[in-house]
C-alpha cells in the first residue's frame, strides 16, 4: 500500500466560503499528481452531487506555492502547504 502524504491547501477569494479556517488538509498517496489532489479536494469540499457553479469555480482555480503556479502534472512527494487560486481581479 502506498504511503500517504498530507497537503494543506490554503483557500483565497471566493473559495474561502468552503472552509471556516480558509484551509483544508487532504491526504493523498505519495507521488500523486496535483490532478489527484484536486479531485480529492473537490470530493472533500463539494461531495456529490455538486452545483454547476461551484464545480466551475474549482475547475477554473489553480494550485500554487509561494513562488509560482503549478501544473496539474506536478508530483507531490512530501507533506507541504499549497494555495488554491480562483480567477483573479486585482486593481
Amino acid at each position, binding site marked *: 500500500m502506498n504511503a500517504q502524504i498530507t497537503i494543506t491547501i*490554503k483557500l483565497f477569494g471566493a473559495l474561502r466560503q468552503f472552509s471556516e479556517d480558509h484551509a483544508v488538509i487532504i491526504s493523498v498517496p505519495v507521488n500523486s499528481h496535483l490532478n489527484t489532489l484536486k479531485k480529492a479536494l473537490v470530493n472533500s469540499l463539494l461531495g456529490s452531487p455538486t452545483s454547476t457553479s461551484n464545480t466551475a469555480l474549482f475547475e477554473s482555480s489553480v494550485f500554487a506555492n509561494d513562488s509560482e503556479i503549478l501544473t496539474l502534472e506536478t508530483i507531490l512527494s512530501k507533506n507541504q502547504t499549497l494555495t488554491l487560486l480562483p480567477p483573479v481581479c486585482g486593481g
Partner: protein
Amino acid sequence: MSSNYFVEITENKLNIQEALNYASANAHGAVASFIGTIRDKNLGRDVVAVSYDSSTPLATNVLSEICREVQEQTTGPLRIYISHFKGRLLVGEASIVIAVSSPHRNESFVACRLLLEEIKKRCPIWKKEHYSDGNSEWVKGHALCQH
C-alpha cells in the same frame, strides 16, 4: 545591483506621494501614474465598499515578474512603483497606485497601462463588493494560466 522597481501588497493606506518620489529620477523627464479607486456602482448595483484579498507572497513575486517583463519590452530604462491594497476600502479610496518614469513620455504611458493590465490578469488578488442592500459578492475574474 539595485533594482529599479518597488512592489508591495499593503494593509496601509496607499501613499501617492511616496510613489511619485520613488519613480522620479534626474535622468527621467516623464512620470506616468495610475490610481485605482473604489466606485459607487458596478453592474447596476450600489457599491458601498470593496474588500481585497491576496495570496501575498505569490502576489509580490508576480508583481516583480511583471515589472521585469515590462522593462524588457521597453526601450530605455524605467523606474516602477506598484502598491496594491489588501483589506476593506470605502468608495473613493485608492486600491492600487502605479507610478512609472522614463527618460521620455511615451515609454511611461505605455508601461503604466501595460503594468495595470497584466496585474488584472495575473496577480493573485481578489475583490469582494459590498452593496447598499447589505449583500456582498466576490467579483468574477480572470482564470490564471496553468501551463
